[in-house]
């Protein structure tokens, strides 16, 4: 590395350190600060810009532009400030995770067209939430009526499941407030081992059935056709389910 390269690198590190400081000062969670700075460091390395300030602008101004758009800015009325996080999980773990994240102050607003829980958290006064999931095959109205007296409110549907939320403040009072909310999780997908095992079993069954068909017919293309048919056969109900959910989300 030449002296000029070393100088550039030194200046870039100085800029990124200053930017990290300012992002923290603007209230960006620590894990987001780290990810942002690493990402921008990678950008500088890849584009070969020696001067970080020429690429991103003055650190304070850039930090101000980045933080107001991450959901943790301070608006005119701090009481209105919310963080937003979208995440998804499979049916084996979703209820447990809803309650875990509910304990961290996340309130589900809706389930979007691709099955993600769109969750908000009040930054100034985060409150604990609890959740339950109900199987609904003939509409949700009866279940809504049955659960309403206990304070459960519908917060989303996904295919045959309806999700309900209830503020823990109803049972805990002021103790339902989350005193030290953890940062917004970086992950947005939570799939259990059971879910992956199910996928693996499905894939293995398809391959075995394809192999049996190929051996039985004495023709490899017959097995391939069987496997392709199986995949297409699985894709059709998945596409139908996605279309149904999308329409339902739009209606609601």
């Amino acid at each position, binding site marked *: 590395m030449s002296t000029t390269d070393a100088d550039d690198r030194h200046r870039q590190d100085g800029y990124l350190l200053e930017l990290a400081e300012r992002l923290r000062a603007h209230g960006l969670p620590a894990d987001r600060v780290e990810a942002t700075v690493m990402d*921008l460091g*990678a950008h500088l390395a890849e584009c070969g810009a020696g001067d970080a300030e*020429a690429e991103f602008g003055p650190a304070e101004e850039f930090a101000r532009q980045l933080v107001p758009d991450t959901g943790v800015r301070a608006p005119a009325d701090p009481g209105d400030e919310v963080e937003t996080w979208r995440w998804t999980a499979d049916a084996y773990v979703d209820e447990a995770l809803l309650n875990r994240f509910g304990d961290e102050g996340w309130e589900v607003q809706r389930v*979007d067209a691709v099955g993600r829980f769109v969750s908000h958290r009040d930054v100034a006064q985060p409150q604990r939430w609890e959740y339950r999931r109900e199987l609904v095959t003939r509409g949700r109205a009866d279940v809504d009526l049955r659960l309403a007296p206990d304070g459960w409110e519908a917060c989303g549907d996904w295919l045959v499941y309806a999700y309900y939320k209830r503020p823990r403040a109803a049972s805990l009072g002021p103790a339902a407030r989350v005193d030290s909310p953890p940062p917004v999780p970086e992950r947005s997908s939570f799939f259990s081992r059971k879910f992956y095992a199910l996928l693996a079993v499905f894939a293995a069954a398809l391959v075995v059935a394809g192999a049996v068909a190929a051996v039985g017919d004495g023709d490899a293309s017959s097995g391939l056709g069987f496997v392709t048919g199986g995949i297409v056969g699985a894709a059709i109900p998945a596409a139908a389910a996605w279309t149904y959910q999308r329409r339902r989300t739009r209606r609601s």
Partner: protein
Amino acid sequence: MSDRRSSWFKGVLDLLVLAALTGGESYGYEIAKLLGGAGFGQIKGGTLYPVLNRLEEAGLVDAEFRAAEKGPGRRYYRLTEEGRATLGEQGGLWLAFDHSVREVLARAGVEER
């Protein structure tokens, strides 16, 4: 005149970023390079990243930081269903606007340079 081009660009950059993600997930520098190669010139990180953040906050893109086995980690951006719908709707409005401007300028005898 370059100021005017710069303000046109800023007005449409969010749509260009969404369009750049229709081919699959990507990261900041790659998006800047793709748009630069499309004739928009060099796009500074200071212009691009705040736009990516705004799109993420609006739910039009999803972002995920992934550490790399070799080299530095990056935030990868992916178009959401909402982002795809917004691109179709807003992109269509932009094309209609562009069509009207072209018609008026063509009637006035203006040619592309």
